[in-house]
């Protein structure tokens, strides 16, 4: 069944943006050749596309920087152990020495339990690290879930 004018006009935004599927393009162009009303709609949409507003230069970087700051703030509110690398080693040595001194009969030394994970407090402002995963192929929904899971 051939498309009506309403069907054609529904597809004109895709045509104006160059995204009309090839399977529909032939019928749409054929219809436009013989329908002045739909042709005028197509011309109006083309004018609008010609003057599409663009975001000012720098807005992307500005939003990304603000977003990274928001992520860092939310991480800072989470409760976690943070032990500088040098402190971890010193603590382990101290515990071992105390155990051997105070408890000479303890042959194996004190068991060190629940050592907090080492966490660096340094990160690059651009968020890029060699070997970091690339997310070009992920959908928006996957990216959003990834952000939420890493932040929660």
């Amino acid at each position, binding site marked *: 069944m051939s498309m009506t004018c*309403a069907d054609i*006009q*529904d597809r004109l*935004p*895709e045509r*104006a*943006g160059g*995204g009309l599927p090839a399977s529909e393009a032939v019928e749409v162009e054929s219809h436009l050749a013989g329908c002045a009303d739909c042709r*005028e*709609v197509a011309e*109006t*949409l083309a*004018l*609008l*596309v*010609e*003057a*599409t*507003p*663009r*975001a*000012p*230069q720098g*807005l*992307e970087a*500005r*939003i*990304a920087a*603000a*977003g*990274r700051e*928001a*992520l860092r703030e939310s991480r800072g509110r989470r409760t976690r152990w943070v032990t500088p690398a040098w402190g971890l080693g010193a603590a382990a040595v101290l515990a071992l020495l105390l155990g051997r001194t105070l408890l000479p009969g303890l042959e194996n030394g004190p068991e060190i339990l629940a050592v907090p*994970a*080492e*966490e*660096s407090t340094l*990160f690059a402002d651009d*968020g*890029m*690290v060699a*070997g*970091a*995963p*690339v*997310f*070009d192929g*992920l*959908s*928006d*929904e996957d*990216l*959003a*879930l*990834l*952000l*939420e899971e*890493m*932040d*929660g």
Partner: protein
Amino acid sequence: MERARAGDEAALNRLVSRHHETAYRVALGILRDPEMAADAAQDGFLKAIRGLDGFRGEARFRTWLLTIVSNEARGQLRRRGRRRETALDDVAPVVDGRTAVDDQVVASQEARRARRLLEELPEKQRMAVQLRLDEGLSFKEVGEVIGSSEGAARVNFHHGIRKLRERMEEP
């Protein structure tokens, strides 16, 4: 941990890269002021990032983000009292962040007039046209952003285009 953080921020950068233009245009349509629109786009994005735990429904991320940006822009409009009375066309047109005096490619006068007349349409008609044409949203997604059914979004789109054509034929 460093890779997790890098992945976190890489994911954020990817989302911003994909959608900052859309967020800006939606805000601009409501506020008609480039600076206010940039602020609203940023604030809307930040609200979306902070509220990601609320994003687990059926809507696409882009639709959800644009709903937040729209609400943020309307909130700014209410707080500031009124939108600019002068149309964007009254200032030097901006293309890719540069003014017309810097850029060789500037939209024709007729195209700019069409955009100016589009701004004057009732909000739902204007947003239906902008979201379909500029952002490629389906009618169903347009309805989600403007708060109507898919059918009503389609009607708003067609009525908006018809009214725009009538206005363009006026002297």
